[in-house]
C-alpha cells in the first residue's frame, strides 16, 4: 500500500495520537507541579501524591469503588455466562429477542437506565447505595460481558462437549472441564473490561449512590467543583497506573493459560484477537 507512505497520512496519524495522548501527558506532568494553580511550572514535587494518599475522602472513595467494581463484575459474569449458555440452545426466535435485549443495554444512553432505576428503587423503597450501584452497573456491564462470551461460545463445537460426555464425563464435569475451561479466557477478558467500566463510571453511580456511598469518580467530581489542584492529577495518574497494571496482569495470565505454547505471537494476539 503506497497509501501508507503518504506524508499527509503520517502527519494525520501524529495529530490524532497527539490529540489522544497530550492531555493525558499533561495530567501526568502536572501531578508533579509545585504550583497549585497549574498555570505554569513551579518546580517538581511529590507532595500531591502524599496528599492524595492521606486524603480520607479519596481513600474511602477508592474502597467503595473497588467494592462496586468487584461486585458488579461478579454479578455481570454470572448473568452473562448463564445467559449465553441458555442462548446457545435457544430457538432462533428466542435468540433474536435475547440479542435485542443485550444490544439495547449497550446502545441506550446510560442516563435512561440510571433514571429508570432511580425511580424504580425509590418506588420500591430499595435503599440507594453500594448495592443499588452494583445492580445499576451490571445492567450494561452484563451486556458487554455477554457479547464477548457469546463470541467465544460460537467458536466452541458442540461435538466437543458430546465427546467429553462420550468419554465418561457427567454433565457437571463436562461443564467444568470443557465448557467453562473453553470460556475462561473470554470470562477473564470480559471480567476485566467490566471491572474497568465500573471503576470509572460517574452517571449511574451519581444517580444510585444516595448520600452515603461515593465512589472515587464521584469524590473527584466533588473536589473539582471546589478547586482544581494537582492532587486530582495525582489521583488520576494512580488510577491510570492501576488500570494498566491490571490489563498487563490479565494478558500475562492469558499467556500462561493459553498462549504460552503457541509461540511468541500467542498471548497478545489471542487476547485481543478473539
Amino acid at each position: 500500500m503506497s497509501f501508507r507512505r503518504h506524508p499527509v497520512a503520517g502527519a494525520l496519524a501524529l495529530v490524532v495520537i497527539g490529540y489522544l495522548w497530550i492531555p493525558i501527558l499533561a495530567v501526568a506532568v502536572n501531578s508533579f507541579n509545585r504550583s497549585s494553580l497549574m498555570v505554569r511550572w513551579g518546580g517538581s514535587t511529590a507532595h500531591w501524591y502524599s496528599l492524595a494518599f492521606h486524603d480520607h475522602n479519596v481513600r474511602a472513595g477508592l474502597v467503595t469503588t473497588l467494592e462496586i467494581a468487584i461486585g458488579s463484575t461478579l454479578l455481570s459474569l454470572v448473568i452473562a455466562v448463564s445467559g449465553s449458555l441458555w442462548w446457545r440452545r435457544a430457538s432462533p426466535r428466542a435468540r433474536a429477542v435475547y440479542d435485542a435485549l443485550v444490544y439495547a443495554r449497550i446502545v441506550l444512553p446510560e442516563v435512561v437506565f440510571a433514571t429508570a432505576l432511580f425511580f424504580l428503587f425509590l418506588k420500591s423503597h430499595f435503599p440507594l447505595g453500594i448495592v443499588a450501584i452494583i445492580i445499576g452497573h451490571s445492567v450494561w456491564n452484563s451486556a458487554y460481558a455477554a457479547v464477548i462470551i457469546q463470541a467465544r461460545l460460537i467458536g466452541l463445537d458442540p461435538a466437543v462437549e458430546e465427546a467429553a460426555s462420550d468419554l465418561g464425563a457427567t454433565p457437571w464435569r463436562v461443564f467444568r472441564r470443557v465448557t467453562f475451561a473453553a470460556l475462561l479466557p473470554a470470562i477473564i477478558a470480559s471480567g476485566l473490561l467490566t471491572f474497568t467500566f465500573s471503576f470509572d463510571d460517574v452517571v449511574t453511580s451519581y444517580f444510585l449512590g444516595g448520600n452515603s456511598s461515593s465512589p472515587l469518580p464521584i469524590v473527584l467530581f466533588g473536589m473539582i467543583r471546589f478547586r482544581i489542584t494537582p492532587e486530582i492529577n495525582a489521583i488520576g495518574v494512580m488510577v491510570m497506573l492501576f488500570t494498566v497494571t491490571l490489563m498487563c496482569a490479565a494478558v500475562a495470565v492469558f499467556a500462561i493459560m493459553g498462549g504460552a505454547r503457541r509461540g511468541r505471537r500467542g498471548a497478545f494476539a489471542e487476547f485481543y484477537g478473539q
Partner: protein
Amino acid sequence: MTGDATVQLRQVEKRFGDLIAVRSLDLQVAAGEFFSIIGPSGCGKTTTLRMIAGFERPTAGLIEIVGRDVTHLPPYRRPVNTVFQSYALFPHLDVLENVAFGLREARTPRAELRRRVGEAISLVQLDGREQARPKQLSGGQQQRVALARALVNRPEVLLLDEPLGALDLKLRKEMQTQLKDLQREVGITFIYVTHDQEEAFSMSDRVAVMEQGLLEQVGRPEEVYRRPATPFVADFVGLANRLSGRLVGPTSGDRYEVEIEGIGRRLADGPPGLAAGTPVTVVIRPEDLHVEPAGDSASDAVATAGSVAATVVDVAFLGAHRTVRLNAGSLGQLNAVGRGQAMVAPEDTVRLSWKDDDAWVVPAASG
C-alpha cells in the same frame, strides 16, 4: 451370531417431529467385527450411530450393548466411545491430556493412566507430539489423536462417524489401511459410518446399506455388490447397468428365466422365492459386460442369441482399466469397464454380451 452380538438394535425408531429419521431398524453386530453403515446423506446412518452412542434417544425400540439394555442410559454410562467427524478434540488441552481425558474421568490410578496413554499415543504413532495442542497438528494427526483418545478407554465398541471425511484423498487411502490394521490389532468392534461405499468395502467385514431411514441390506461387501437386494443398493454400490423386465419363472434353485424388454428371454440369478410375473430389474455390473466389434465375423459366430447391438459414445482411459459408455437404443445408456475390452472407438457399432451367471435379478422398486 445372536449369541455373541456386541451391539443389538431391535425395532429401533427415531422421529424428529414429523420426520422419521430411522424406522424399525433391526441390526446385530458381532464381537470384533468391522461393521459399516453406508448410505446417502440423510439416510439415518449418523442418527443410528448417535443412538448407539447415547446422544439421541430412540423414539421406540431397544438398544443392547454386550447383552445389557442401554436404551435409556446417558452417553457417559455406555461402554462405547466415538470418533467424531470433526474430531472434537479439546482445544484447551494438549495431546496427552486429550488422550487421558476418559481415563481421568474413570479415576484410573496414575501409573496405569500414564502407561495406557503412552501406549495409545504410540499406537497411533504420535510419540513426541504429547505436548502439542490440537491446533498445531495436521488433519491426519488430529484424526489419530481422536482415535487414541477413544481407544485408550478400551471400549466394547468404537463408533466412527465419517472419520476420514475431512482428509484429502491420498491420506484417506493411507488411513483406511491403517484403520483396518489397527482394528485387527486391538480386536475391538468397530461401527463405521460413511457415505463412501468404496471406503466401507475396503475395510469392512460386513456392510449395512440404509436409505430414507430404512435398512436395505446387510451382508459381506462382495455379497452386497454381487447380489444387491434392491435396485437402490444396486445403484448405490458401484456402477450398475439396469435392464427392466418381467419374471417368467424359476428354472432351478435361484436361477430364473426373465423376459427383458427389448432383448427377449434370458436366464439370470436372483434371490430365492420370487413369483412369476414379478416386475424386475436385471443388474449387470460394467465389468461383466463384454464389448465386441460388430463386424468381426469370427466373434459373430460365437455371439449368442440375445446379444445386444450398441453404439460407443465415449471411451475413457483410467490407467488400470478403461470405461466404455454405450448407447443401446431403447435400453438406454450402458457402461462397460475392463482391461480386456476390445479396442473400440467412439461411434463404433458393437455387440454386447454377458454370462447368465453375471446377471442378477432384483424386484423392481414399487414406488
